[in-house]
């Protein structure tokens, strides 16, 4: 079974620039999550999709972050404009159930550095 695919693996941008990350979840997983993991911390949920609808985006900084999952499969997370404090690893995960009771399957992440 193919895992969760993410790209790019690394990205370095200057502050105020924009950046986009892509994720393709495990086939058949209806629920997709984007997490932000700052160095030394655990992953923090940014947004959760069930098929192509948003279930939870309460911790997404909506003034600069946006995400979409138009066809209920792959997803894109965008930051515009980026700030220094956005430097982190952005992890995509998927799960069979709505709330991850059977666990989340994570991709390898995108390491973003904002300079």
């Amino acid at each position, binding site marked *: 079974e193919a895992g*969760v695919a993410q790209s790019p693996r690394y990205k370095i941008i200057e502050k105020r620039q924009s950046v986009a990350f892509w994720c393709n979840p495990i086939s058949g997983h209806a629920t997709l999550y984007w997490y932000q993991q700052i160095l*030394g*911390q*655990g*992953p*923090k*949920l940014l947004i*959760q999709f069930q098929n192509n609808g948003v279930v*939870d985006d309460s911790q997404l900084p909506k003034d600069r972050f946006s995400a979409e999952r138009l066809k209920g499969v792959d997803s894109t997370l965008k930051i515009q404009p980026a700030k220094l404090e956005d430097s982190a690893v952005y*992890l995509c*995960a998927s799960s069979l159930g*709505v*709330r*991850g*009771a*059977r*666990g*989340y*399957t*994570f*991709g*390898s*992440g995108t390491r973003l550095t904002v300079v």
Partner: protein
Amino acid sequence: TQLLEQSPQFLSIQEGENLTVYCNSSSVFSSLQWYRQEPGEGPVLLVTVVTGGEVKKLKRLTFQFGDARKDSSLHITAAQPGDTGLYLCAGAPYYGQNFVFGPGTRLSVLP
């Protein structure tokens, strides 16, 4: 607000030693998961515990969920360099809610 605390924050031991890491909260969790994250990779699920007092074993790893479902421990017997990584616990505050992650314990097992 950090719902979950993990201790120790860092742990460096020699191959063959035993260790225990802890996950604590003042809140009750309906279930709790443990993940291991290796450098440059995403977290990988190790176990899910749902019943207070539950003990699960995965080869050399033993997981325990506290009776009150507020804490959990992970014990590793005869640690190996391959056990090196960040160990994360994640708790679901209520049934049907998303899991919230703790800050992790970074383990280094030296050969």
